[in-house]
């Protein structure tokens, strides 16, 4: 056994690796090592963190495609010159851009490079016995020399070590020539927490990547009524997104019908609560009922169904020249907070001669409409007075001609084809729109009629599955626990040196106790903790104060930390 205290090691409380020596040598390997060291340094981590923060800013200034597609289109219209250039710089897809990706990938490489060596050192430190006492305990931030006690050093050492172990300190007793030292160490949880924190950042990144590869979503507008029910196949969604590793086979075999929709509003029109009664089946299961709410999605095993929007679908009945009636349930899109809504009802099969079955290409009928759930005092304004139906009205513009549906060009189902109108293929009937209340009928110039029967409610749904979310959630919990441990726990060491007195006859059979303690500067409660430990280490009676230093006098108070 050596009596040389390993002072430098003992007084180092951080498991941070030694700062690397300036890398020598030329050659590829040496250069690589230098770069690697640079990348995994704390300074680089800091710079990358800053870059990440700065790089996230443009995403809040420019509309982003994944959030606000129409905002991007508006931006292109408003800034026709700048937008394409910005687009090339990924200004509208900041968080999917290569430069944003490069920053966070570098950051995570740096993180792994920084933390793997730290983890090795931490594990080694936990397996190792606490280091021996430094030679000069009196040079440590905490020091006490409580005096001498009438016990032999070895016995006292065991007692102190037992006391410390009872307080969950890791201890080691070393016998030297003429003295015994007790080393104790505590607070490894700090570094464990720190490592957990950083690795859960990594886990979150993996969870996000997993979710976007294996996840999917689909949006669907669904009108109330059993015949409107939809089943979750890709064709039935108005739009959808599949992760790169997901396929249509991953969609749950869901069929869902909107039974009823209920909305409550305050007197100023602010919505207060929405609920949608739905009935659904999964595969061959019996139908089940579920009430969808804004904060209450329908949870399935592999996906959830969310309520994301709602509106009115006017029901319009058109009776053509041959007396045949057709009914259209056309969802109208809200254009303001009071749910004034716009849309169209088209009758491409109107006026087909039942004898010949021949379609007259210029006798198709379409209505462009504006619906107001509560007609205002001045219906011309077109703005509803309240979002619920308290005296609704529907303003219709009637058109006859070729609707242009056969051209095969994708077009909005919420407006008539403006090109057909411009080319005179589709002509407005009369020069006035007509206001209809529920049940009212309008007879057109050719004697055909259109009747506003009432409305149905519709909702928009999103079916979404993010298989990475549970991992992200768990990693988030670990992250928080690790962070708390890392910020509250303090790594600390105490040493006791118990030596037999030399020479002095009056001290024969006694043991001189000296103690020292070390922690990070932030932990101001350590002084109290140290004082208490020292007080507990010496037996209550029979201790003689040392000549040169008074026993610790501070009463234990307010010490915290573990």
């Amino acid at each position: 056994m050596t009596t040389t205290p390993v002072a430098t090691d003992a007084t180092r409380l951080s498991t941070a690796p030694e700062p690397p020596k300036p890398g020598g040598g030329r050659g590829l390997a040496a250069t690589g090592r230098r770069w690697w060291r640079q990348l995994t340094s704390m300074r680089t981590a800091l710079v990358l963190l800053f870059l990440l923060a700065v790089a996230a800013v443009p995403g809040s200034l420019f509309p982003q495609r994944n959030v606000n597609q129409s905002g991007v289109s508006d931006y292109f219209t408003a800034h026709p010159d700048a937008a394409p250039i910005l687009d090339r710089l990924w200004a509208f897809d900041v968080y999917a851009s290569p430069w944003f990706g490069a920053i966070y990938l570098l950051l995570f490489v740096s993180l792994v490079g920084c933390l793997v060596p730290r983890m090795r050192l931490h594990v080694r430190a936990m397996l190792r016995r606490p280091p021996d006492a430094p030679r000069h305990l009196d040079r440590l931030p905490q020091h006490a020399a409580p005096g001498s006690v009438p016990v032999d050093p070895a016995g006292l050492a065991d007692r102190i070590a037992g006391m410390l172990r009872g307080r969950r300190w890791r201890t080691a007793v070393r016998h030297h020539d003429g003295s015994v030292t007790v080393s104790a160490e505590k607070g490894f949880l700090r570094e464990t927490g720190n490592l957990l924190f950083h690795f859960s950042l990594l886990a979150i990144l993996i969870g996000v990547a997993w979710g976007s590869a294996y996840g999917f979503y689909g949006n669907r507008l669904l009108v109330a009524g059993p015949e409107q029910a939809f089943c979750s196949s890709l064709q039935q969604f108005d739009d959808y997104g599949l992760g790169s590793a997901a396929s249509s086979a991953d969609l749950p075999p869901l069929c869902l019908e909107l039974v009823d929709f209920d909305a409550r509003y305050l007197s100023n029109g602010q919505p207060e609560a929405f609920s949608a009664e739905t009935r659904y089946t999964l595969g061959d299961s019996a139908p089940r009922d579920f009430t969808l709410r804004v904060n209450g999605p329908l949870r399935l095993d592999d996906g959830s169904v969310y309520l994301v929007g709602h509106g009115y679908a006017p029901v319009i009945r058109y009776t053509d020249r041959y007396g045949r009636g057709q009914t259209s349930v056309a969802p109208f899109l809200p254009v303001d907070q009071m749910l004034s809504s716009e849309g169209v009802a088209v009758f491409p099969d109107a006026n087909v001669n039942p004898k010949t079955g021949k379609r007259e290409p210029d006798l198709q009928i379409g209505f462009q409409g504006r619906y107001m759930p509560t007609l205002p005092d001045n219906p011309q304004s077109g703005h509803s007075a309240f979002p619920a139906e308290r005296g609704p009205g529907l303003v219709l513009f009637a058109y006859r001609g070729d609707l242009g549906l056969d051209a095969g060009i994708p077009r909005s189902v919420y407006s008539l084809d403006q090109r057909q109108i411009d080319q005179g293929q589709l002509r407005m009937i009369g020069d006035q729109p007509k206001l209809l209340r529920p049940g009212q009928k309008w007879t057109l110039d050719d004697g055909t009629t259109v009747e506003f029967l009432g409305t149905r409610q519709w909702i928009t749904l999103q079916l979404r599955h993010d298989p990475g979310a549970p991992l992200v959630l768990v990693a988030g919990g670990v992250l928080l626990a690790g962070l708390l441990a890392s910020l509250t726990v303090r790594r600390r060491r105490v040493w006791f040196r118990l030596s037999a007195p030399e020479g002095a006859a009056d001290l024969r059979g006694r043991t001189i106790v000296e103690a020292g303690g070390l922690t990070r500067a932030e932990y101001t409660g350590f002084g109290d903790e140290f004082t208490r430990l020292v007080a507990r280490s010496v037996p209550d009676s029979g201790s003689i104060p040392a000549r040169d230093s008074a026993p610790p006098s501070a009463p234990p108070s307010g010490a915290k930390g573990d």
Partner: protein
Amino acid sequence: MPDPVMADLSDQLLTVAVLCYAIAMLGHAVEYAFGTRRPTRRTGTRSLVTVGAGVSNPAVGADVSEPAAPSGRADLAGKADLAGRAALWLTVLGALAQAGCLVTRGLAAERVPWGNMYEFTIATGLVGVVAWLVLGFRRPVRHLGLFVTLAVVLLLGFAAVRLYSRAGPLVPALNSYWLKIHVTAAVLATGIFMVGFVAAVLYLIRDRHDDAVAAGRWLRFPVTLGVQLPEAATLERMAFRLHALAFPIWTFAIMAGAIWAEEAWTRYWGWDPKETWAFISWVVYAAYLHARATAGWRRSTAAWIAVAGWVTMLINLFVVNLVIEGLHSYSGV
């Protein structure tokens, strides 16, 4: 339905709170101007250390500041001490009124009283005041109340003038118990960050002051304020403690927000401006903790990062809500 009596009471209590803080500010100003904390000033070197644009003698400045002396030493100092203590108790009164403002607002609207920006700002201010009071009663930093009360009066004034909205229920998307959890955590973290920011700024001032004094340089405003401040190390540690407390709460607030967003908006993270800026603040504060933990770096570097962190918080609170508004709306389905 909103209760108009309670709603009016709430508005009046806010006025009372602002009045209390304004008078407290006066008291603190008196203490700040006439109070004495430095032994050197009591012994007649007063002319050397004047508040405002003054000169500081290196020998005086190097002197370590000490807790306020018991009142009654010098007549003026005693009165100033009284003013300071009265100001602190007035701040307590103001905090009670402010808490009452929130409670009555909650009763009026029958929900937690932090559902919109007006309420969020008032709640955040309250957390800041309470954090300040805990510090102010326990540590020798009471005369800093001048800055805290000034900040709170400005904050509440801004809330009342620019952000006011009548008490009312929430839109459906906000109607979730995650609102209580998420916003409560956000309010707490923001309030504590705010006090931490004040501590960081004061530390920077004191640090500058010490440097200037050591180099025998002239002092100019605001470095002259350093004369009155606690020791640099004390302020720095206070700033760190507050940030280390607020950061996990902020982390939790973001995570609770993500859980709520998953329920209400179908995805847990969507990079809307509010989320983006919460993330930016989080990253900047993480950088602060890094810089603070890196041995061999100047503490003032870390303090500047903390200041940057607070700037991002302010941007998120005010610029994102009031200027970038429209990209994102908390109303509707």
